[in-house]
């Protein structure tokens, strides 16, 4: 019965979710490439959603429906679906998918759901395939292939988010100084990364000092995974740009080595950065009098931006309104003729533009030109 009620409730509010623009800004997992039967952390950035700035007491939880719904309490969620506050708008969900969903690991390919406050009154857009942001379980099929040696995930990795590097120790090359042999690394007692960035410019060497951080995780069948966040792992300065990662694998004694094809060092090139267009604010026309119509355009808005408001002050007069449009272009249409018809002495207007969440986007004075009679 309870299930039916929640399903009906879901159907009732679903259209409103679809219409809303409450997309979760960013989702990432630690490790980046994970198996369905290990502990993982999923991080959510709720900036720009109804949960933006939410307090820990109000709480954020996951309402998940795929592969099933393990917590059908719409309000008053159980601990397993509650998120922990990391900082700012970042919230973390710790789970072992197979345990949470009570399913064999091979039956879990992805996780879909949405975020909401404990009370179920503030809801984000879904993370699901149709939104392009479902949480997917990494498939080992690529790295398990006959000739596969190295893989990494995600392909569009960045320096400040988790990156998983996977090697197939059955296919790496050892004894490169004498007679190269394939797959010897799979017999090593442990496997570690001897790594560097930008042509070994900055390194974390495989030596006794770094034993605590160089080890790879064995996923079974000779597949090993190294989970790093480049900036943290290599201790990079804030303005340091990684162009590529250099690696060689070995056990801690270097008795077993793992190199690439033709005994080459491994190299992963940093993906090209997708440059987002910079938001542009335009006051139209460039000159304006109190007998004119003023249009304020903001183009190429941040994808997380759900809307803009403006407040115009002129002397003692204050007027507020909303922008229209989409993230591509939002426009506010302001009739200064009507607004300022009684403001004879006003020589300028002050315009404050805020996001729907209250963040100040712009604050500026606009002089009013005198028109020729």
């Amino acid at each position, binding site marked *: 019965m309870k299930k039916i009620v929640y399903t009906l409730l879901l159907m009732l509010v679903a259209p409103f979710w679809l219409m809303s623009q409450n997309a979760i800004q960013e989702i990432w997992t630690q490790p980046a490439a994970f198996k369905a039967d290990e502990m993982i952390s999923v991080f959510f950035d709720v900036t720009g959603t109804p949960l933006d700035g939410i307090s820990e007491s109000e709480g954020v939880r996951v309402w998940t429906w795929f592969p099933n719904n393990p917590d059908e309490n719409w309000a008053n969620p159980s601990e397993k679906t509650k998120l922990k506050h990391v900082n700012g708008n970042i919230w973390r969900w710790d789970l072992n998918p197979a345990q949470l969903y009570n399913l064999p690991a091979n039956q879990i390919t992805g996780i879909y759901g949405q975020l909401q406050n404990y009370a179920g009154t503030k809801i984000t857009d879904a993370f699901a395939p149709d939104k392009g942001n479902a949480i997917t379980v990494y498939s080992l099929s690529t790295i398990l292939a006959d000739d596969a040696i190295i893989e990494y995930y995600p392909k569009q990795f960045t320096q400040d988010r988790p990156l998983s590097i996977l090697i197939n120790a059955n296919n790496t090359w050892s004894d490169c100084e004498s007679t190269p042999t394939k797959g010897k690394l799979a017999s090593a007692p442990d496997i570690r990364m001897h790594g560097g960035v930008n042509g070994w410019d900055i390194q974390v060497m495989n030596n006794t000092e770094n034993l605590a951080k160089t080890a790879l995780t064995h996923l079974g069948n000779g597949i090993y995974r190294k989970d790093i966040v480049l900036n943290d792992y290599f201790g990079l300065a804030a303005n340091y740009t990684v162009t590529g990662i250099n690696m060689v694998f070995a056990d801690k004694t270097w008795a077993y080595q793992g190199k690439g094809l033709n005994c080459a060092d491994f190299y992963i090139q940093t993906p090209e950065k997708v440059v987002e267009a910079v938001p542009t604010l335009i006051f139209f*026309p*460039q000159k304006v009098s109190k007998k*004119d119509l003023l249009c304020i355009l903001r183009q190429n808005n941040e994808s997380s931006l759900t809307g803009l408001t403006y407040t115009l002050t002129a002397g003692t007069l204050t007027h507020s309104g909303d922008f229209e449009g989409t993230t591509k272009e939002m426009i506010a249409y302001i009739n200064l*003729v009507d607004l300022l018809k009684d403001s004879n002495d006003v020589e300028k207007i002050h315009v404050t533009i805020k996001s729907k969440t209250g963040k100040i986007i712009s604050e500026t004075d606009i002089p009013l*030109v005198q*028109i020729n009679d």
Partner: protein
Amino acid sequence: MKKTSLILMFILVMQLIGCNKTDDGVFTEPITMYEKMVGTWTISKVAQKDLIAIAASSKPDQILLTNKFDFKTFTITLNVDEKFAPTTFEVGGTSPQLFLQSGYWKLNNPFPNTDGKPLVIELYSDEAKTVLIDELSISTVPGAKKTLVFDLIRESNGVAYVDYEYSLKAN
């Protein structure tokens, strides 16, 4: 002799006939622009043009406002007397009052300009047409197609900076 007398009589008769008054038809006043402009015009398009942006070839230089600010409701009625002389005008609707809303009007020239300069609708607050309030520069003159396009151009320090272009159709 008889022949001579006949010729003289013929000339005399012809002269008498030739003294009839010539019929030049009824005099009519020339057709002025007022005949084409009289009546009520409703909006089909409104654009705001940033003349400084246009001069600098920067974008955006134009924003369509047809569906904004209630411009859809805009009408202007231009009245003439029985002799097609311009009398009063009135703006209808709830769009922004960018120029005089009612009063008296005339054109700066009742005929199309031959020097390429646009005709201008002059809006006056007084019947004597001595107090000129606003000018609307006509860019499309009504003809076979009943369309009228005029521009309200604002200037500051002698420099035109914005143009509100009203495209209208006969009601």
